[in-house]
């Protein structure tokens, strides 16, 4: 039987507001433990929360970008559960009257466009972090409350996704939108963008849902894709063996590349939601919404179309470049200094991304600013260096952060275009390889490549390749 997967994603986004959701502590990441805390976010007796307007504003902005309708009145609720990283043992969240509902975002997989529904967007506070004793025999855990109270948005998709590819495309698109809105750092590794997936399978063509599992701990696009692929396979093979799928919460084990059961439906928490009595319902007027709407930046889809139209980029290039706001910003800056969009795009999608990924960096963190890339491309265009050298120089730029011209000059990498100098080398190579010369003359075209290679070797790659070709052919 042929099966199809039904996937819905619950995404948590840490908002990069200056202060926490309900107090004035800083939200900066990476501070020493328990240095960004106050009585409120520590949940000390007697404290009360105060809604951070910036959080609401970021929430509205995101909801608008996701085509949601904003609730004129929303409220906060308490989600009650015990966990040592949760100072009050309840989380201030939103239950039955969330900030926004009924939106969508558009994804494209294998050239097919698809609209994925957004069921709701709501605001809540993050928990702290447990640090377990690591030395042998340690049987204690410490709590860092710096993250406790950092504002989160929870964005819940409809069960509209049908494959791991679609799920990943949804996450990538969502991440891009959030980055464009500048409401979150969206760093999956640091946990500022987190994702849980609800997955079920059913016979293709069926309209009823199968029993779902919830998969947690999806800390990267790759983990999301692999965990979903694994979970779908697991569920299908259960069904094919005539077994039932158990409704449960599972976690992705990155080490073993499997999902495993965390808790069954029976063990699921009863969160005992009730309206947060310490906060009054929040009214969001049209005026506020319109003011936020007027600050919405250009979003990925619009920018992609613009890059195609204004720079003549192919659709594929435009999609990759606009997939990250930082990359698109980088592109436009570089093109403004080196007005060959396709060249810039090729470099960005090729060596630049490769080097960036190798270092695990985001485009905005690249040690090579767009000015330096443009300089490099200029050097290559005007013939000062060859493409091969340019690639080497880019690596050097990534490694040292130095400028292109500086490296080229310091290392004497300027291309050799002096005919007399090159002729001498060409003569030398030809004399050293009479057999190859003979092969070429007999019609073996490939032999030329070898000879070019030898010249390049002699010049440590600095020879102008066109000139070398020309000089060789003249003599053969």
């Amino acid at each position, binding site marked *: 039987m042929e099966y199809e997967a039904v996937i819905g994603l619950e995404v948590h986004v840490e908002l990069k507001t200056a202060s926490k959701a309900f107090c004035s502590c800083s939200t900066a990441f990476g501070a020493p433990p328990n240095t960004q805390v106050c009585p409120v976010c520590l949940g000390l007796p007697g404290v009360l929360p105060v809604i951070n307007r910036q959080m609401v504003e970021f929430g509205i902005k995101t909801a608008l970008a996701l085509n949601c309708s904003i609730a004129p009145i929303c409220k906060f609720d308490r989600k009650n559960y015990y966990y040592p990283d949760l100072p009050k043992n309840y989380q201030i969240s939103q239950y039955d009257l969330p900030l926004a509902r009924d939106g969508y975002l558009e994804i494209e997989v294998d050239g097919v466009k698809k609209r994925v529904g957004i069921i709701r967007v709501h605001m809540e506070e993050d928990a702290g972090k447990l640090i377990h004793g690591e030395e042998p025999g340690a049987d204690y855990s410490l709590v860092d409350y710096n993250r406790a109270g950092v504002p989160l948005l929870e964005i819940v998709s409809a069960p509209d996704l049908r494959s791991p590819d679609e799920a990943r495309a949804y996450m990538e698109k969502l991440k891009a939108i959030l980055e464009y809105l500048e409401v979150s750092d969206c760093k999956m590794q640091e946990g500022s963008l987190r994702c849980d997936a609800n997955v079920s399978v059913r016979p293709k063509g069926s309209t009823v849902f199968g029993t779902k599992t919830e998969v947690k701990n999806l800390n990267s696009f790759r983990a999301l894709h692999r965990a979903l692929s694994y979970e779908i396979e697991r569920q299908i093979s259960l069904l094919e063996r005539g077994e039932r799928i158990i409704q449960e919460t599972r976690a992705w084990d990155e080490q073993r590349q499997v999902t495993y059961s965390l808790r069954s439906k029976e063990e699921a928490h*009863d969160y005992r939601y009730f309206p947060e009595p310490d906060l009054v319902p929040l009214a969001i007027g049209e005026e506020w919404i319109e003011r936020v709407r007027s600050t919405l930046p250009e979003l990925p889809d619009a920018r992609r179309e613009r890059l195609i139209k204004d720079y003549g980029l192919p659709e594929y290039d435009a999609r990759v470049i606009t997939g990250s706001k930082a990359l698109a910003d980088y592109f436009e800056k570089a093109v403004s200094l080196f007005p060959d969009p396709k060249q810039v795009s090729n470099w960005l999608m090729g060596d630049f991304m490769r080097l960036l990924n190798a270092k695990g960096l985001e485009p905005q963190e690249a040690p090579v600013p767009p000015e330096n890339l443009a300089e490099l491309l200029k050097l290559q265009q005007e013939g000062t260096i060859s493409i091969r050298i340019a690639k080497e120089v880019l690596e050097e730029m990534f490694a040292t952060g130095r400028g292109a011209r500086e490296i080229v000059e310091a290392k004497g990498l300027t291309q050799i275009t002096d005919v007399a100098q090159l002729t001498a080398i060409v003569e030398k190579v030809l004399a050293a390889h009479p057999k190859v010369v003979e092969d070429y003359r007999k019609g073996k075209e490939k032999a030329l490549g070898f000879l070019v290679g030898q010249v390049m070797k002699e010049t440590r790659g600095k020879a102008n390749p066109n000139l070398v070709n020309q000089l060789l052919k003249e003599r053969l």
Partner: protein
Amino acid sequence: MELFYLSAHEAARLLQNKEISAVELTREILKRIEQVEDKVKAFVTLTPEKALEQAKAVDEARARGENLGPLAGVPMALKDNLCTEGIRTTCSSKMLENWIPPYDAFVVRKLREAGAILVGKCNMDEFAMGSSTENSRFFPTRNPWDLDRVPGGSSGGSAAAVAAGEAFFALGSDTGGSIRQPASFCGVVGLKPTYGRVSRYGLVAFASSLDQIGPLTRDVTDCALVLQAIAGHDPLDSTSADLPVPDYLAALRQDIKGLKIGVPKEYFGPGMDREVVSVVRQAIDRLSDLGAFCEETSLPHTEYALPAYYLVAPAEASSNLARYDGVAYGFRLPGKDVVDMYMKTRREGFGAEVKRRIMLGTYALSAGYYDAYYLKALKVRTLIRRDFDQAFEKYDVLVTPTSPTVAFRLGERVGDPLAMYMSDLCTIPVNMAGLPAISIPCGFAQGLPVGLQIIAKPFAEEILFRVAYTFEQATGNFRRWPEI
């Protein structure tokens, strides 16, 4: 009269006229505490050194000719669920026995700024759950009028301290009657302000949608003075009202002619002590004599207030008290894992009544029961509020007994939670509707004080003061103090 039985505003006048220094007055109070505290047991923590330091600072400021507030140099006491920076705040619970807050509650800051001098933190029912101050982790407080009787609760320590001359005034908190009922039992004035009138920031929460902080004082003028000092908007409490604070002292007028007073019959029916009812009826006659128009009326949903309250308040409490888990502060009993630690800590750290209410509330909020209990209770709350709204279309204030009985004997109701809960029958509906209400002494039954409760519409504390002041001035004979 003894200095320690002056009213706060009388004491303040002596201070202003430099007839006495703040240090002298504070010493007087500390001496009184030394004399009677063993019998009354109003305080969980005394702060004599800090009090004298503070008094000295006030005297110095006065000597420098600084402009001081009307409470400057007046010794006061605080219920031990109001956070005081550097002074332990226990809620009379083992859970917080050694907890020292790093911050002052809004009202504490206000009173410090006003120059009032803190002499100590008052005993209470654990986490404000109770009506007799017997649910204290430490010891029960005694009623200064009869040491074998309870002072009421949960602000029993605050009421007893004021009645025993151990402080000129005190703050309490009132979730279902916890200021008014002990005020009534101890023969002092107690005000529960409108929900939102006083910031709750720094009040250790019991039931957030019902809790309000208010004064316990020797007379109505003091009550207005203290409310003046603590009322007002606080950006740190989103439920505090952003409304101007009226001049409450200006509201103290001896004139209730033509005022319409409703007397809801539901507060005089079964369960009410006959003698209490009789004293309260006499007080109502007195109000008529003073020119008010008093008439029987009805608040038909009154009987549902108590059961609904015992869903809403425990539900909120079950969540508010979840934070006492032994992880970051307060009492901890180690366990074999974190869940075991939670269970041991909470089993040992909380007393029986607190645990009873946590269980009630957890149950009321649980999946499958929420609609039948919590949601239903919220609907009842709306009906109760509507009853009052309708009554206030016709009446300026409503008057009732504050408590169905006078102070009962220690131990009398400890084994019977329902009997204990009944002592808040007359006060609970006011919290459910978020209204202001004052309890003032209106006579004696069996030699014990009886309180008259006056209720007004939201933010109409001024009219409460006006009626209470007029009554007090006309019947000054009820301002008596117990022999201890």
